[in-house]
């Protein structure tokens, strides 16, 4: 018999038959791991401001936060991805927080055909609302990074 174990791969790729919450779980994990690594580097990089103006300017130039050219464009692209990762993790995190403490959860009712879990309607509507918020945030970010000069 085949073991029901997909290993680490399933953390990030739950499979096409997985529901939306399962995909959000995977994305939440992936963005979380990326953000921990980014945070560690970020603390080291911005720490350069404690060593004076020259150190700050030099560090910003090295990482591509200032200046021009291909390297700078690449930095902007990754900065946009970072902003998206933060936004997604925060917005989905808010959903998890609300769900964990049972807010928006309806009263359970006797299951009747077509057997829709009515008590879960609130969290589901909230999920769609948050995804719309994220979409607006995504567009705002796009405007900030690629349209406004």
């Amino acid at each position, binding site marked *: 018999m085949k073991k029901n174990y997909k290993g680490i791969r399933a953390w990030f790729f739950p499979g096409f038959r997985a529901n939306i919450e399962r995909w959000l779980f995977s994305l939440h994990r992936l963005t979380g791991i990326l953000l*921990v690594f980014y*945070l*560690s580097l970020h603390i080291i990089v911005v720490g350069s*401001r404690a060593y*004076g*103006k020259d150190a*700050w300017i030099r560090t910003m130039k090295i990482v591509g936060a200032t200046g021009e050219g291909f390297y700078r464009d690449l930095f902007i692209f990754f900065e946009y991805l970072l902003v998206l990762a*933060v936004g997604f993790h925060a917005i989905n995190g808010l959903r998890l927080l609300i769900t964990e403490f049972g807010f928006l959860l309806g009263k359970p009712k006797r299951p009747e055909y077509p057997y829709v879990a009515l008590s879960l309607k609130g969290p589901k509507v909230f999920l769609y609302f948050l995804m719309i918020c994220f979409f607006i945030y995504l567009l*705002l970010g796009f405007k900030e990074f690629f349209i406004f*000069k």
Partner: protein
Amino acid sequence: MKEKYWIFHYISAAFLFFLLLSHIFIMHFYKILEKIGFYQKPLEWETVVQRAKSVTFTSVYILFLIFALFHGFYGLKNILTETIFGKKYKKHITIFLWFLGLFLFFYGTFTTIKAGGVK
């Protein structure tokens, strides 16, 4: 104790939701903010010094470090210790992440306070 960590993970998440999104808007959405009348260049040295000298910003940065590092490293520990490898080396992983987290916290706090004295 485990429950306390888990509760703090959620408390820090609630604080981070506001802190992090404010941080993102101030530091990364400055062109949009400029359009609505809040002009600032977040990476320019004068602005950096101005923030570093502000007691409010310094306090928020240190709070930020506590919440973000705890939330991030506790989350990472939970993810890693779910694996077969992680279960086997749970203690080592926990100690390593505590050590790394504390190092980043002290370094971050040191540079945040020291930056308040630069010219």
